[in-house]
């Protein structure tokens, strides 16, 4: 029926009245034309006015009025029972808050389209690859020369652009002492145009900035950065800042809302890809993604095909330059990589990749919590409508239709849901930033665009409606089906209602079990990871990522010069020892290579290598078990100026010795590696150290080779301090700069931070899942208590009679609670099944735990049982202590 026309009628009352008058006048006129007298025709029609009102009544929503009346009545009903109403609203609000939080995060990270023109025709290039563990994976990093080839390959079907990986950098608008952090992104000059963006001030980058490597020191800042750093001062355009060794001029401001292409990072400034000067010519520096915008009329498949051909040709060419002993499978895999186009409509970022699964899992968990809350409220309402049975019966007997009763009850539910949603939104506003804060390390926070717009509002409205139907429909239909005679006579058979309530309890218990089971898995994973031995010391270890001004020719410095800087650092009060390596352990960087041993097959497996200074192993607390440390300026295995191999010293760890020397003393033995120009170089083992983690704490202790650091442009100082490392950062940074000679600290961090960064995702999942487990448990407990309480109240007379006839306390308790505890068991069993089935969806996020471990299974079971007993105790005690005489006299 046309609800809309009725509502319109309410507002178009006058016009309606006029039209009715006109229609009736027309009738009289027709009657007169047929030869009747006006008076007679009017009489026959009856009072025109009366008819008008009758017609109006039908058209005009009496419905609207009933709606209003029902709303007022519903509101009064809710207010009359503040306890139940409060409990219902609070439990729903908790769940809705959690669901909305999950939605806001998922939306911001995965779904929200970028604020650019036609985001649907944007794609990012990806290729199939294999990860360290040998599993199929996908990569999206490209080098500039390849970008040029791909660009030519699709010239007339798609426009491609360089979209650099976002990164945090030190920049300064003044001296070195005023360094500040800002997020940078390299973009093709054409990118802004291809994205269809217009400047908010000044100009954006243009194709002119795609010409000379290092020749376009201009920057476009984001609107947010413009606001926070410059207070939207128009004079910001034209200002200069220094990043690294280059001075950039700000030429414009990007439009409001555009914060870069990586959800999770908000870019502060964009600079032309050409400014990554050294990388432009290098085929093995992958530092960017490639985005494509399809031209109108071009198909995804056609573009993909052309890109694929270009990629394969490129890789075939590059494979020719591979070391002769590169395992065939690897070459094969490299050449046959498959090129894929992935939608970039919602942006592309590492955060998306890392958090897609956790977000979906958290979403599923909060939905379970929502269902638990709905079941709770449904039970509360069912108990509630039981006590209103007589009211309903009365309404039916004076002629209320069933639809009208459902409407009345559903409106009450809607009021509940709407209040809960409002409260939930407030909770979500408070929770979302808290969760975002947990995603990344404190010094490199995830920055998400979390606007309050129609997407969130619409979601909340849909949620309120959905929830209303979920918990309200059942009780409303049930209550409206009341048969007046039965109700008046003292109530219908309450069994049916109790059965529904018990079934809902079983569902709650099952979901609660699943949530606890998952929480157990995630907490277990986090615990296992945290207790993983690292093999090195993290205490009071501060790390200075340092670089030298200049190109790779002029900036590369020998070990002697780095050691001089290390000496300056050592002189700082509070420093115990200093050493350096090309990068820190667990920093995410890795150099891996195959090794060749006499009388042994070449293995496909790669071993980690790390360049270190003398004393680095000692500073890091990695103990020597045999042999010696490196000497000062000791030669590393390599090639000399004439490309002839030169033997060098290396130190291996025990895992390496176990793998290649069957655990025998490796000192004095040697192996070969392949150096530049495809020549085999002898590595002489001079020492053996204990195992330490290298790239991640998730893998087994990796076989590792430490090599003397001969010369480098970039290295990380590991500084062991006497006291807390935090306050020393600035002093140490200045020490390095004041050493002169172009040395400059790029970033300061601690070894402890690098370790904890390894577990951020696991920590987040553990914390949130425990939080939701507690919420779920509280909700289930409240539900259990409510249902049992209701059962005792309802069966008061029956219990009274049983007691009067001599039933013992235990008997009564078993009688009242027995069925419910059976449901508890059924729910737990179902939960167990669902939990075990869900395990494989989360398997990739687990470490060292399995759902089949006894503690993981027993903990939720025990928790649920204890909480169930606690929740059930008060009503059961009340039942047992009931005075039969009083129970029978009531009513």
């Amino acid at each position: 029926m046309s609800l809309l026309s009725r509502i319109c009628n309410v507002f178009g009352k006058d016009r309606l009245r006029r039209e009715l008058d006109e229609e009736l006048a027309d009738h009289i006129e027709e009657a007169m034309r047929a030869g009747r007298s006006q008076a007679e025709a009017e009489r026959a029609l009856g009072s025109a006015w009366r008819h008008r009102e009758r017609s109006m009544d039908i058209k005009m929503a009496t419905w609207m009025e009933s709606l209003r009346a029902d709303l007022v009545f519903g509101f009064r009903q809710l207010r009359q029972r503040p306890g139940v109403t409060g409990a219902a609203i609070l439990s729903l609000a908790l769940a809705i808050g959690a669901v909305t939080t999950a939605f806001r995060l998922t939306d911001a990270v995965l779904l929200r389209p970028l604020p650019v023109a036609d985001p649907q025709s944007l794609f990012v290039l990806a290729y199939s690859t294999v990860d360290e563990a040998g599993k199929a994976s996908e990569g999206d990093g490209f080098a500039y020369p390849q970008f040029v080839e791909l660009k030519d390959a699709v010239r007339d079907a798609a426009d491609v652009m360089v979209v650099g990986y976002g990164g945090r950098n030190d920049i300064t608008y003044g001296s070195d002492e005023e360094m500040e952090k800002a997020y940078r992104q390299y973009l093709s000059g054409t990118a802004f145009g291809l994205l269809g963006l217009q400047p908010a001030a000044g100009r954006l980058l243009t194709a002119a900035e795609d010409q000379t490597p290092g020749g376009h020191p201009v920057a476009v800042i984001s609107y947010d950065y413009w606001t926070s750093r410059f207070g939207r001062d128009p004079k910001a355009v034209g200002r200069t800042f220094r990043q690294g060794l280059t001075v950039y001029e700000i030429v414009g401001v990007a439009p409001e809302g555009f914060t870069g292409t990586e959800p999770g990072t908000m870019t502060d400034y964009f600079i032309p890809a050409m400014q990554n000067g050294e990388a432009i010519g290098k085929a093995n520096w992958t530092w960017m993604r490639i985005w494509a915008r399809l031209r109108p009329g071009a198909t995804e498949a056609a573009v993909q095909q052309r890109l694929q051909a270009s990629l394969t040709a490129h890789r075939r060419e590059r494979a020719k330059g591979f070391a002769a002993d590169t395992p065939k499978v690897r070459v094969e895999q490299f050449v046959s990589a498959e090129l894929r186009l992935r939608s970039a409509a919602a942006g592309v970022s590492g955060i998306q990749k890392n958090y897609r699964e956790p977000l979906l899992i958290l979403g599923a968990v909060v939905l379970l919590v929502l269902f638990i809350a709905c079941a709770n409220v449904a039970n509360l309402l069912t108990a509630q409508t039981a006590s209103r049975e007589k009211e309903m019966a009365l309404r039916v007997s004076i002629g209320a239709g069933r639809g009208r009763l459902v409407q009345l009850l559903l409106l009450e539910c809607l009021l509940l849901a709407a209040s809960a949603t409002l409260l939930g939104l407030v909770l979500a506003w408070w929770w979302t930033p808290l969760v975002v804060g947990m995603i990344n390390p404190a010094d490199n926070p995830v920055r998400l665009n979390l606007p309050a717009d129609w997407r969130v509002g619409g979601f909340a409205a849909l949620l309120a409606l959905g929830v209303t139907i979920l918990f309200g429909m059942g009780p409303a239909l049930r209550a409206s089906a009341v048969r007046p005679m039965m109700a008046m006579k003292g109530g219908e058979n309450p069994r049916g209602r109790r059965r529904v309530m018990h079934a809902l309890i079983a569902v709650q218990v099952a979901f609660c079990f699943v949530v606890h089971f998952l929480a157990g898995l995630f907490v277990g994973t986090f615990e296992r990871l945290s207790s993983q031995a690292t093999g090195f010391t993290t205490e009071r270890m501060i790390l200075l990522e340092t670089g030298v001004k200049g190109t790779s020719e002029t900036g590369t410095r020998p070990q002697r010069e780095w050691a001089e800087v290390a000496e300056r650092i050592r002189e700082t009060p509070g420093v115990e020892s200093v050493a350096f390596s090309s990068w820190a352990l667990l920093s995410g960087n890795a150099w891996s290579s195959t090794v060749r041993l006499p009388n042994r097959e070449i293995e496909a497996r790669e071993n980690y290598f790390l360049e270190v200074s003398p004393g680095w192993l000692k500073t890091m607390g990695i103990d020597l078990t045999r042999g010696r440390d490196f000497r000062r300026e000791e030669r590393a295995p390599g090639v000399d100026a004439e490309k002839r191999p030169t033997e060098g010293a290396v130190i291996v760890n025990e895992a390496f010795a176990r793998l290649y020397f069957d655990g025998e003393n490796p000192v004095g033995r040697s192996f070969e590696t392949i150096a530049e120009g495809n020549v085999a170089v002898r590595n002489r083992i001079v020492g053996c150290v204990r195992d330490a983690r290298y790239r991640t704490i998730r893998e087994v202790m990796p076989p590792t080779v430490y090599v003397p650091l001969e010369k480098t442009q970039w290295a990380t100082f590991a500084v062991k301090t006497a006291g807390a490392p935090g306050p020393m950062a600035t002093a140490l940074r200045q020490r390095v700069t004041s050493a002169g000679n172009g040395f400059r600290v790029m970033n300061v961090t601690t070894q402890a931070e690098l370790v904890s960064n390894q577990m951020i995702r696991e920590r987040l999942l553990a914390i949130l899942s425990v939080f939701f487990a507690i919420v779920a448990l509280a909700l289930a407990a409240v539900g259990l208590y409510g249902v049992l309480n209701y059962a005792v109240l309802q069966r008061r007379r029956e219990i009274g009679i049983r007691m009067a006839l001599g039933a013992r306390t235990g008997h009564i308790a078993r009688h009242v609670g027995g069925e419910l505890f059976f449901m508890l068991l059924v729910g737990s069993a179902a939960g167990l099944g669902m939990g075990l089935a869900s395990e494989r969806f989360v398997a990739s996020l687990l470490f060292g735990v399995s759902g089949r471990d006894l503690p993981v299974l027993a903990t939720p079971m025990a928790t649920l049982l204890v909480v169930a007993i606690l929740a059930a105790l008060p009503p059961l005690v009340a039942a047992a202590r009931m005075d039969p005489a009083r129970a029978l006299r009531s009513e």
Partner: protein
Amino acid sequence: MAKTDGLQGSLDLLILKLLSRRAPLHGYALMTGIIESSGEVLRVEEGSLYPALHRLEEQGWIQAEWITKDNGRRSRVYELTELGRQQLTVAEERWTAVSAAIRLVLERA
């Protein structure tokens, strides 16, 4: 909530049937149509015609439209909707069944 009694039901049926046969009709023409085609046996109470029409319109069985007559006055004409056509079939069947049953009772009692 309005109840549908037998009388109202038959008026609805007659309106639907008449509208299914003839082009758009206004209220007065409908009334005279019912009288004429029943051989002047049935009379339509003019007072209940318009509420019935508006109710049928609300139910979506008929639709109305304003047309301008030769004398410049407007007239509201009604026609059947697809939904109304379906409803007519249902109502006609029910009516046939009921009248057959009544005839049976009259004959046998």
